């Protein structure tokens, strides 16, 4: 919100009539400034003033939605340049490029692979968001067939890439209710595109040869009442991409420059032939503000690192992800089952519990509240030391749950062994593997009650 309460106050009727539900115009203004009230609630606002206020209070980067229903992707409304200042809100979308020049069987294979893609991390699904369908064949029929296929056989949000404006919009009309992004809208086709964009109600991917070139197009679209746009400044490589994306976000956030107040799209798939480089450029541009990155392929070993990266960058740095403190029972453990301990850092819990499940040996997994710190950070700050763990054992009566007296601790926590031997007399402290993922092998080879 760009406006302060006092500034809004100046534009209100100042009659304190209370019809908005607030005791004074001033109280209403203060509430508006923090986003807690709605302009509509004051019936006495001059419509022109309202429009002015609305424009001034709009987020500096517009929220734009591509696609419809469950798979719609919303990007924009970011508030900071740097993640540590607050957080990044709307994850970059990941799009996979499919050209109508590829053979039918290749397209079939690619779609199948994309649909089968299934990764989970810390209880969340990691997924591809969009298909970017590209007109390269010169054959309108082929392109439309591809668009129809993607529309009918998948639920992904769509991007349509086609230099021929007529073909572009004719394809868009085949899937308009899916709200595809139509690309490129340039200074040369803006006037032809405006009536179609309005008729179909689809978002526009605006392309310029430079940032400056973008602004005239976005202004023209805005004047025509079109506000759902994505920006592509035409960056040719990663370094240009970092520059352009940075300047666009800065102009929008720090200068309040409206013609650039939209989310962006970047095309690593056109920047690099090499797939490693393409993936790296995508990773860099996700940090540096791209709302969507388009990739040329969908192979798991290239996508998984990128998806995990996005998960990291878009997690909230103010709030560690945690799980509940508890003696978790994994697969119906009994009195001879192993006892393991870890922290309530969500990542630790998910890694270790998944490993125990994979081992297929029922077990007690003690999850100590460490306020979301992993093993060694928690040890250093006293939240996962001998004393803290002994308390946990007392509280959850671990000694009553099993007959044996063996506790498996994380392999990195060598320094814990002596502390625990002192705090948990009678228990044998077993140093487990360094990596959570090695627990299955460890349990099946070493565990005896």
């Amino acid at each position, binding site marked *: 919100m760009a406006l302060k309460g006092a500034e809004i106050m100046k534009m209100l009727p100042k009659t304190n009539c209370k019809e908005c539900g607030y005791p004074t115009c001033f109280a209403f203004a203060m509430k508006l400034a923090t986003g807690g009230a709605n302009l509509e609630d004051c019936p006495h606002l001059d419509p022109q003033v309202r429009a002015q206020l609305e424009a001034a209070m709009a987020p500096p980067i517009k929220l734009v939605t591509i696609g419809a229903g469950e798979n719609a992707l919303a990007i924009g409304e970011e508030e900071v340049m740097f993640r540590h200042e607050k957080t990044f809100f709307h994850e970059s979308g990941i799009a996979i490029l499919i050209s109508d020049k590829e053979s039918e069987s290749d397209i079939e294979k690619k779609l199948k692979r994309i649909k089968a893609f299934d990764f989970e991390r810390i209880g969340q699904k990691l997924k591809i968001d969009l298909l970017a369908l590209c007109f390269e064949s010169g054959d309108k029929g082929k392109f439309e067939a591809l668009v129809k296929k993607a529309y009918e056989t998948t639920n992904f949000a769509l991007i349509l890439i086609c230099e021929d404006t007529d073909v572009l919009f004719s394809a868009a009309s085949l899937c308009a209710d899916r709200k595809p992004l139509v690309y490129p809208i340039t200074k040369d086709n803006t006037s032809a595109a405006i009536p179609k964009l309005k008729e179909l109600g689809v978002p526009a991917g605006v392309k310029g040869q430079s940032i400056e070139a973008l602004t005239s197009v976005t202004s023209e679209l805005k004047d025509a009442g079109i506000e759902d746009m994505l920006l592509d400044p035409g960056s040719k490589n990663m370094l240009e991409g970092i520059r352009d994306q940075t300047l666009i976000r800065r102009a929008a956030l720090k200068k309040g420059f409206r013609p650039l107040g939209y989310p962006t799209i970047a095309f690593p798939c056109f920047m690099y032939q090499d797939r490693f480089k393409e993936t790296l450029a995508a990773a860099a541009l996700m940090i*540096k503000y791209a709302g969507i990155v388009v990739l040329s392929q969908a192979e798991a070993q290239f996508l998984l690192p990128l998806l995990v990266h996005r998960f990291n960058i878009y997690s909230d740095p103010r709030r560690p992800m945690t799980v509940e403190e508890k003696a978790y029972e994994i697969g119906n453990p009994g009195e001879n089952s192993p006892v393991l301990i870890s922290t309530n850092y969500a990542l630790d819990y998910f890694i270790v519990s998944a490993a125990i499940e994979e081992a297929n040996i029922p077990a007690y997994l003690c999850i100590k509240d460490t306020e979301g710190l992993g093993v060694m950070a928690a040890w250093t700050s006293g939240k996962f030391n001998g004393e803290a763990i002994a308390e946990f054992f007392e509280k959850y009566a671990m000694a009553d749950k099993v007959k044996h007296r063996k506790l498996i601790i994380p392999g990195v926590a060598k320094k814990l062994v002596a502390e625990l031997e002192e705090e948990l007399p009678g228990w044998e402290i077993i140093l487990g593997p360094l990596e959570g993922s090695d627990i299955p092998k460890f349990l099946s080879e070493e565990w005896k009650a």
Partner: protein
Amino acid sequence: MKYEPPLEKISVNIRETVLGQGEKSVKIGGENTLPFHSFEGSLPNSAGLALEVLDTQPENWAPSVLEPFEDVVSDPVKWAKKCVEVYGAEMLCLRLLSTDPMGKDRSPEEAAEITKKVTDAVDVPFIVWGTDMEDKDAQVLMQVARVCSGKNLLLGPVVKGNYEKIAKAALEHGHAVVAQASMDANLTKELNIALCKFFPPEKIVVDPTASALGYGLEYTFSIIEEIKQFGLVDKDKMMQMPILCDFGGDCWRTKEAKESREQGILWEAISGITFLLAGANLLVFRHPESLKLIKEMVI
């Protein structure tokens, strides 16, 4: 509305640190702008990219990261030579793993001997790294400083509990140090202030500790980015040292990196590019292919 590029000029520089000696010495830092912002400032030195060499046979390395070194892992001298001659490394990081008191517990004298041999064999600058055991690292790195006098090595990690001893030896024998304070900008600053009472600031590189993609990167990225901004934007002189990120080992330990060669290389390279974007000036890689990728991307 007319578009004016919203450029931001910064009036201070990150300190420039010279590592190694002679023709092959490497300069890092010196920039007066945020990472990759050559459109609004100057970045005189590209980041230093180092490859690891262990003083002892690696254990539990994934086949795809062992493969490039398979023929040399039993000999750190050959290993170092291969890194330079075959993989074109411009810097190396020698890890004195065998000095770990909970492991082989090799003596400082032996460790210094090995370091001397390895650093004599190739002429690129070296980072020489202990085992994160404060007291032992102090003994080992002091001895290394003496035996390798004048080589301008980068010795680390130097922490709150052992900085005086190591830095004094480094000063006396002409080396630089890595000041390590984990994951906390204030602690980084405190350690720098303490060091600067007797040690030249241009011979300090800081290590806020790094980590692998998916395993703590969400924290390390932001803390490093913040430290860089304290130095450049807030002009805090005690935050203007070049930053080291040592993450290759962490990456190759992950389940995901072990799953496939391509995935492992990307795991390391994505972590690397992320740290460069945060503001790292010196990166330590484990796989030559990840290093090469990053090198080609950033020039």
